[in-house]
């Protein structure tokens, strides 16, 4: 049994436990590589039956177009139920990363949207693809993370997680965020994608793409909503994405890696961490922890 087998077995065990103890499970599906791996594991956990829960995608309307195409194809191919949710209040209010800044935008279009869709369907076990190696405050979150009726995370009051015996008891309207990939690293994810031949969004693979340089980061031009400033010039560069979020908030990295094997090789030689392309993590000190307390994944 190698490391990928160990991780796979552990994740399947977590997914099964949450489903066995929950009344209304759901999987947050963000279309990224971690979501793809998590979904793949869920397909295995209940094989030959489909996973007994829907996928939920919070659509901020600022996702890369290729992500939406990929999402719809994946759901179709596997025959799963997909719930998409957009915070229409935010859309009506014209909230965008350009007009409102990344913090307000994320609060309204992601965090608040997530709370609303969870309330609407009353899900009580919600799978997310977060990994502990991504960010310091994630390293301290439980695999089964209790949320009160307002979806808040209380880092000081977390239930102790003993052996493989989670305490999943809860009262009405309380819920759990469940993170089956807690112990995976970015490299593990890519090695597993390679081994299992898991489809991922093509944006992860390097290609010549139209980009501009802004604040030292390569932003891809995905549609006309990204307006060029006077000194900015569109150019074609070989870039790929290490992480996929909303397009004006996720920067590409220059890379020649055009296949999974090349990505694995690139990561093995790499010496920067993954979220350095995520602009929202830098907007405030301790920013991820604050977002999580408010209900962000």
């Amino acid at each position, binding site marked *: 049994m190698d490391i990928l087998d160990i*991780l796979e077995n552990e994740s399947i065990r977590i997914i099964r436990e949450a489903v066995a103890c929950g009344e209304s499970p759901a999987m947050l599906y963000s279309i990224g590589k971690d979501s793809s791996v998590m979904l793949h594991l869920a397909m295995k956990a209940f094989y030959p039956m*489909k996973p007994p829960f829907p996928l939920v995608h919070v659509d901020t309307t600022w996702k890369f177009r290729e992500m939406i195409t990929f999402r719809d194809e994946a759901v179709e191919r596997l025959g799963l139920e997909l719930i998409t949710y957009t915070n229409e209040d935010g859309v009506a209010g014209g909230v965008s990363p350009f007009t409102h800044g990344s913090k307000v935008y994320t609060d309204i279009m992601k965090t608040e949207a997530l709370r609303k869709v969870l309330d609407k369907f009353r899900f009580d076990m919600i799978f997310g693809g977060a990994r*502990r190696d991504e960010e310091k405050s994630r390293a301290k979150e439980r695999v089964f993370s209790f949320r009160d009726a307002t979806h808040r995370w209380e*880092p000081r009051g977390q239930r102790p997680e003993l*052996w493989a015996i989670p*305490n999943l008891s809860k009262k009405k309207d309380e819920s759990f965020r469940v993170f089956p990939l807690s112990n995976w690293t970015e490299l593990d994810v890519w090695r597993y994608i390679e081994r299992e031949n898991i489809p991922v969004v093509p944006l992860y693979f390097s290609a010549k793409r139209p980009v501009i340089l802004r604040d030292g980061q390569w932003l891809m031009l995905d549609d006309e909503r990204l307006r060029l400033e006077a000194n900015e010039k569109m150019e074609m560069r070989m870039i790929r994405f290490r992480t996929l979020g909303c397009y004006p908030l996720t920067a590409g990295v220059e890379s020649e890696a055009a296949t999974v094997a090349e990505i694995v090789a690139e990561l093995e030689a790499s010496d920067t961490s993954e979220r350095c392309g995520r602009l929202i993590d830098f907007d405030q000190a301790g920013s991820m922890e604050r977002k999580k307390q408010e209900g962000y994944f």
Partner: protein
Amino acid sequence: MNIQGEKSVLKFLTCGSVDDGKSTLIGHLLYLTGNIPVDQLKTLEMESSRIGTAGGGLDFSLLMDGLMAEREQGITIDVAYRYFAAAGRKFIVADTPGHEQYTRNMATGASQCDAALILVDVQQGILPQTRRHALICALMGIERILFVINKMDRVDWDEVCFRRVESQKALLLADLESFGIRLQDAAAIPVSALTGDNIALLSSKTPWFSGDTLLEWLAKVSPGSWRTAAPLRIPVQHVIKGQRGGEGWQHLVPDSLKSASGGTFRAYAGTVVSGGVACGDELVALPSGVSIKVASILAGDREVNAAAAGSAVALTLAGEHDIVRGDILAPARDRPEVADQLKVRIIWMDETPLFAGRHYDLYSAGGTARAEITRLRNRIEPESYRRLAAHTLEKNDIAEAEISLSRPIPFDPYGENRETGAFILVDRLTNATLCCGMILHSLRKGENVHWQAETVDRSKRSALKGHQPQVIWFTGLSGSGKSTIANALESRLSSMGRHTMILDGDNIRHGLSRDLGFTEADRIENIRRIGEVAKLMTDAGLIVITAFISPFRAERSLVRAMIPESEFIEVFVDTPLQVCEERDVKGLYKKARNGEIPNFTGVNSPYEAPQSPELVVDASKLSVEDSVEKILKFMDAG
């Protein structure tokens, strides 16, 4: 970063007192093994010069201390996990806090780990905290502990200083052994987390030391070896079922799984927590003991002939069986025990103290049950490892106890199986995890004592009386009017030809509970005794009326749980405190206000009002006669 895929995972935890340098050690270990990406290193350089405590050098502790609050306080407050790869292996580090009050976090970390590093400041030597950390690791089943003697640079790498700590360690191990636990490995190593000596490379500053470096020691531990040695155990987690080829069936499942005739597919999903399983194996499912035969094994979406420890599998069985979540599948000849009376070790983790006699929910690999701590055998002093007498447990206390379960569960002693020998207790009202537990063995009385089959049973006695036995449980503040109403009710029932009995302070406190005082523990025991007496009397067919303040919700629900649901009527005499105090029939409120009576309910001890009593009467608004009428009406209706 490493180039090759790692072959194994080792989870280990680090523990030490505040300021022993845990975070610095792990940060330095990550740095020396090339596990810190360039951008994180940049942040570290920035933060080191801004808030660092390493005097201009890199403050590695900043890498580990994640949460905002603790960054400000400069201490680790929760379990943090870090990942790194070295020596062809992946390591998961659980960094756990050293504060005394955070024992629970350490136990939590230890439950997931195969090895532990215990940090000791060479200038301080083995402290009481060090002994406590070693005990917790040992109790949680960690058999390999490395004592990391840190800050050797502060004593100029003096061998004598190191040997002195080593001899204190030897004493610790001897005490642990006389307690009953023997570690497989308990080496000591001289290091400096600050300078990095002896962490990845043997240092020239310690020519007198010839042991492994810290990294070498970690690379040698073989994780989870007990799993392959122990007999097969598969706790059933979930039953996968559906119509073959029907709705919910995956699109791409090969025909081999779709039998031509259709029909129901059923597989028992769970993890092989120990041993191995193969197709055709004849097993038993516990607690029922029913024999089963493995027809096929699914490891994810692959059909396999056999699966080893650690595999998440789904088994299909020959024939149909009634197997549910919480059952354990095992070989017939090497099966777990099944019992409902257990001797256990526990670590209490909640602010609410433990009291013997209260009911909790038990969760284990072998399913759930209601549990009662029937006897607290002792409390273990975590520094001396001595067993002391105990009546209650506070947060972070370690103890040995006997528990009684509402149903027999399958289990193994924790020393033989860390998965099937473990449990947690959960508070049924708050859902808090109250303690973690390790099963030592079953109590023989559980296996041998059978309830005497009664030929005259309670329904026969009840029929003879001509009425239903009942408990009318009055609760309310002192002076609320409980006894007055209870007495009036008894005379009315008596005149109606009902056979009644009143239990109150006069006949209980002076007799049955003469040995009890008024501490919280004694009050709980008092109520427990009253509950048992009331139960016997209802078994005898009587209508039992009780009038006690009974201020705690947990105790009242304990009594409620003993009596059949239809026979328990909780009457909340909801007279406002102000009215009770004005009446002050016995002058007790006055005394309590003057501080002459400690623990007086409503004054300096809480009253927890019932959340859903069968009846509420307010004696300040309702006359005694009307109150009695209201109760009689409810009894007839019931």
